[in-house]
């Protein structure tokens, strides 16, 4: 179950479009440096260029695992805000296709909730850098959720 104080924090964050207090609760979010902004009814995730995220020193390029972690975390936050699950969404599986090298620059991600069942959701994530039409990776994930009790 989501603790009541976290739930209150969640609603306040989304109401104000300020997700920093929410991200501060997740150490891994701080480690890679993910940011989140509200764009109307959608969320845009950003991973600022950071030396500590480099995995290929020659290109240089962001570690593929960081790109995956950024996308997985984006999906989890997206669901936390939009799925109205009674529990924190729990990752079941994650599958990523790498399309281009993630160069040493800012990376963005957007999520799409394709199907929300009672217990499982399917969400896809697209990540890009300079041009949204040229994604660096696409991914999809299943998360276990808990349906809110009927009012």
């Amino acid at each position, binding site marked *: 179950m989501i*603790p009541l104080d976290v739930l209150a924090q969640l609603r306040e964050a989304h109401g104000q479009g300020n997700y920093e207090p929410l991200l501060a*609760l997740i*150490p891994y979010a701080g480690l890679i440096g993910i940011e989140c902004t509200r764009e109307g009814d959608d969320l845009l995730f950003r991973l600022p260029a950071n030396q*500590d995220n480099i995995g290929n020193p*020659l290109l240089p390029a962001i*570690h593929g695992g960081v790109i995956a972690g950024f996308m997985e975390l984006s999906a989890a936050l997206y669901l936390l805000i939009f799925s109205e699950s009674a529990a924190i969404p729990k990752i079941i599986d994650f599958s990523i296709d790498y399309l281009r090298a993630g160069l040493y620059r800012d990376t963005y991600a957007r999520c799409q909730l394709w199907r929300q069942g009672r217990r499982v959701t399917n969400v896809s994530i697209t990540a890009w850098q300079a041009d949204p039409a040229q994604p660096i990776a696409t991914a999809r994930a299943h998360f276990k959720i808990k349906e809110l009790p009927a009012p």
Partner: protein
Amino acid sequence: MNETPLKAQAQRFLSALRHCQVLQMRVDAADEKGMTLVMPYSPRIVGNPQNGAIHGGAITTLMDTTCGMAILCGLGAFEVCPTLDLRIDYLHSSIADHDVYGYAECFRVTRDVIFIRGSAYQDDPARPIAQAVGTYMRLGKDIKGGLGFSQRLKGSAQ
């Protein structure tokens, strides 16, 4: 675990990857069969502050690195191969304060592509917390970040 030339080469490669150093990853074992890396538990990689479970992103990073480095075991030489795709199944939650091991092996090597599978576990290899399967692309000799990198690694061995 004994220091083998393969393990030493793997450790040199790993130490050049900045993010893997941030996660304090080390080579645990490397032989012709497969690669085992270890990622120490750290509060910094926690995804769920309620129970201290490690975030999937750190586990995916461990598995992407381990699978990519298993190419050294499969080919007997380094070829930096970008990941085409990677799938992770999260079988169990990770436990706080326990290090995570990643194991991977190549199960099919073709001219262009290498198929790799592996698993992540904490205390018991027979009870993995995640399994991974990935496909890696083999690059030509002249590609930046490709074979030149492995030549440089060999050079630094002398």
